[in-house]
């Protein structure tokens, strides 16, 4: 059974275009509207502030800049988000974001699905693998 989060707007921040494709493809396949992907901190910050958002998927290292300012804006706006990083180390994450869910690259779609459903409090039966 295909799950749908129809109309949910999700900001994707990822500096590597090709890597972002997996996330973008997956989000679109479950019905989300992808905002971005933003590949640089400035662009990401801009989108985080001005766009209407239901959630965000954030890469931690954006071409040398850390994503924390974007995370802060989202937190203040009450937009839930998760980190998607190659090497997420708790010691490197600022304390306010220590409890934010962290996923490792390459993206495992099941996990992202579970996180999003937890965020949006939508119960989804996961039956079988979904290949995109």
């Amino acid at each position, binding site marked *: 059974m295909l799950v749908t989060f129809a109309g949910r707007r999700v900001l994707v921040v990822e500096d590597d275009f090709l890597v972002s494709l997996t996330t973008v493809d997956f989000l679109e396949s479950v019905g989300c509207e992808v905002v971005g992907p933003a590949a640089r901190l400035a662009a990401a910050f801009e989108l985080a502030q001005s766009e209407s958002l239901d959630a965000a998927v954030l890469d931690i290292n954006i071409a040398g800049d850390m994503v924390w300012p974007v995370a802060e804006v989202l937190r203040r706006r009450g937009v839930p988000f998760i980190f998607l990083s190659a090497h997420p180390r708790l010691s490197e994450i600022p304390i306010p974001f220590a409890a934010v869910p962290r996923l490792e*690259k390459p993206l495992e779609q099941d996990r992202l699905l579970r996180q999003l459903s937890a965020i949006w409090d939508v119960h989804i039966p996961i039956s079988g693998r979904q290949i995109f």
Partner: protein
Amino acid sequence: MYGSGAPTVGVLLLCDLAGAGERTPLRVMIQVAGTVQSPENMLAMNEALMLGSLRQHELTEAAELLNVQLQREISERKQVEAALRESEVRYRSLFNSIDEGFCVIEKVEGGVGEALDFRYLEANPAFATQSGMSDMVGKTIRQALPDEPEGWCFLYDTILSTGKPIRFERELVSHGRMLELYAFKVEDETHRRVAVIFKDITERKRIEAVLHESEERFHTLFELGPVAVYYCDASGVIQNFNRRAAELWGREPALGNTDERFCGSYKLFRPDGSFVPHEQCPMAEVISGKIPEANGTEVLIERHDGSQVSVVVKIRPLKNERGEITGAINCFYDITERKEAEQRQHFLMNELAHRSKNLLAVVASIASRSLSGTRSLAEAREVLTHRIQALARSQSALMMEGFEGASVAEIIRLEFEGFSDQVKAGGPEVLLNSRVAQTFALVVHELATNATKYGALSLPEGHVAIHWSAEGTRAEARFKFQWKERNGPPVVPPARKGFGHMVIERAAAQDFGLPKISFASEGLNYEIDAPLSAVAAAGGGSSLRETTGTTKVDIVPNTIT
């Protein structure tokens, strides 16, 4: 007064002694004289007695006094003799039992022009042991030691003339020994005798020489050794330090300065950055006995100018025979380089983890996109495989430069192996950073694949001109890349923009800025123009070395056909 006749010598003497005149009664004179004890006195008193005409009781009295006098003299003489004997005995036992050699020598009175010489009057048993010479008594120095160098007699003669003793060391050459001697004038009537006490110090000298050599070696090692060394006494006062220690501390503490204890550095920190007062440093802990020793403890030395150096310390306590701590010695060495290497390795490991995760993520994306859409599975498989190979080639290009960057020429060369003269590529040596290199390799692959399937490389007369450059200075430097296809089939802009197009347009745009893509009638034109600083590898992206290739691709410097 005393009978007839002139007073005898004895009487005169007596009177003289008593300080009396001739009229003084004999009795008194005897009494007075009796207090002065001497052989002359006795003689005088005898004389006095001989003068007859003494009355009986005076005679008895005189006799008694004389007797007493005599007894006293005898007992005194006996005492003196006993004391003398006792002294002799003591002298003798000392003479015989001491370890040191002892002798008494007497200057030989020779005529003018005769060489100075001294005769051995007596020598104790130890004399032979210490000097190696025996049966010396009765011989002179020159007789007993004919081959001995000059100087001995002169020395002894000087003692006689100055009266001052001398202590000296001298080699007894003829017997191969080093002696330590103390010689003094014997205060007697002869004024010609010298007493000598001496000891064979050959062995001691040898040991001293060995010790000195050992000290020298230690000292040289201490100073020249590459390890910093210093030591303190039991109260932590620095006793000595070597040059390397001063180098690492960046200063020289004043030795023995009680304000500078335990460490000669300006400031000390733990590796975590917390400050350590000198009284609490590892050296202090070893000296106080808090810890038995230090092995491989790391500390951070800060110098006055703020510079820091990481060192590892090895400390051992110094103890006396009773096992009490008398100080401690510290050897420490610089591990800054090691720490930097560790940090670099840590960084590289992180980078590696990052890179490999990234690579997998990119492969996942490519796989996903290559397998979707309207292609047959067989075609999709081929497309996917080739794209992954292009990725692999970018890794090869990276590895060639030790992961510092990837050569543009190398990426192109790897893509076109086997294309003979349909492709001409040229440009300077440019190293792209690892992320950009990946995209670039994929872009080149897509352009090549597209050219092969639909473009210039699908016809034998078509060709591709590839040219790149790195021009301008510093901040304004630009990296430019051009792909020109000619003589291919008529160009038709694609109806659908598939993954390949996404790569050359959007992926490229992210790393190189928006490329110029034109589907001119002559053929596809593709151009990139990016700031060199954004795409070049950290170590320096461009050295203007021209590459000369020996591969099938004609990589000719700066030719555009």
